């Protein structure tokens, strides 16, 4: 009886110690109480404009996509190897349209109230995956900034690829012709003929 009571007492103490150790381990590895990043704020610094360039980009289509990218790495340990994993949910914005700076005076043919001109082929201007557009969903192990950048680069490439597969250049062409026709009609032309230089091919 005495032995059983002692056993229960020790088992209880052991359970409490293991429980506390478990919570401490979780705080150490996963910051469950959010103490480590509490109040993590950047300092004020100046924004430097390194170069300013005149452009004439007519963006006529946007492609938005949310995708998942992941990477795995096995680190060798003294006794066990550890498998590390990173999973990122990234949202991207692809902007496509026409570079109107390629249009020259001779490209316009005006006959009364009819205007005809040829646009250069549509192109992708930007594939945007900014820090506010992605979430670190799983971070097992230590992942350096460069490793994360590489995974995000994969997300960018995938989003661009999907934009092309979903015919963003076709939409840019169709939408661009429609919007520019509307614009030139507002300048007094009743007939607007717009051609595109060649079949879009990125």
């Amino acid at each position, binding site marked *: 009886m005495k032995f059983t009571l002692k056993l*229960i007492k020790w088992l209880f103490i052991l359970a409490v110690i293991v429980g506390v150790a478990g919570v401490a381990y979780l705080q150490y590895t996963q910051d469950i109480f959010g103490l480590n990043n509490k109040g*993590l704020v950047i300092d004020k*610094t100046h924004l430097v404009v390194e170069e300013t360039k005149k452009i004439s980009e007519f963006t006529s289509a946007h492609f938005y*996509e949310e995708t998942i990218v992941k990477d795995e790495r096995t680190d060798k340990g003294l006794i066990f190897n550890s498998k590390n994993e990173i999973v990122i949910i990234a949202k991207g914005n692809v902007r496509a349209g026409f570079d109107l700076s390629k249009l020259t005076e001779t490209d*316009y043919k005006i006959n009364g109230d009819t205007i005809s001109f040829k646009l250069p082929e549509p192109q992708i201007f930007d594939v945007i995956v900014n820090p506010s557009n992605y979430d670190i969903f799983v971070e097992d192990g230590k992942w350096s900034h460069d490793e*994360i950048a590489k995974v995000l680069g994969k997300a960018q490439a995938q989003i661009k690829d999907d934009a092309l597969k979903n015919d963003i250049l076709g939409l840019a062409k169709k939408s661009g012709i429609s919007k520019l026709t509307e614009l030139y009609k507002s300048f007094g032309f009743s007939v607007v003929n717009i051609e595109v230089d060649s079949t879009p091919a990125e």
Partner: protein
Amino acid sequence: MKTLLRTAVALSLVGLTSCDMLSKKDEPSLTDNFNQKIQSVSSAELGSVECKICKVIKADDKAEWYKFGDRKILFECRGTVKAGVDLGESNSYKADINEEEKSITLTLPAAKILAINLSPENTKMVYEKVSKTRFDFNAVERTELLRQGEAAIKHDITKETDILKEAEKNTTSFFTAMLSQLGFKQITIKYKEG
């Protein structure tokens, strides 16, 4: 007595397994068939200025009563910002034409920031110092700092630079050249108030 014994054993088991159970995250069912959210949208944005920008993003996570030692991190973030006018919305622009005088007054929407592109490959972590009593910055924390940097860039680009003025100047020059090619002699470009 038996109940007490069972309770003690159960508590021990909970204690022993709590570490493992809690540390396991909910495994996401990430498959290749992930339902990607895709949307294609038509637009009509005339970008007239592109700025290459650079911002230092730095944070000093100092020691507090509940943490010993400090952590410092420094990023150099480069990117591009494009500004111009959005002609996509209905009634966003208006052209008043006088055929006899060959004059045109084009009223455009106020210039705005059209795109901020902070490509991950152009954001470099240039310095990190962590006390032995602290943990390294993890990816979630670094992302949070970069997000704050992005927000600061969005704020500073319109407050500290003349990018919108430059965008309107370049848009005026673009439309003036275009409309003069179309035969207009007197060209006036106006902007709605932002």
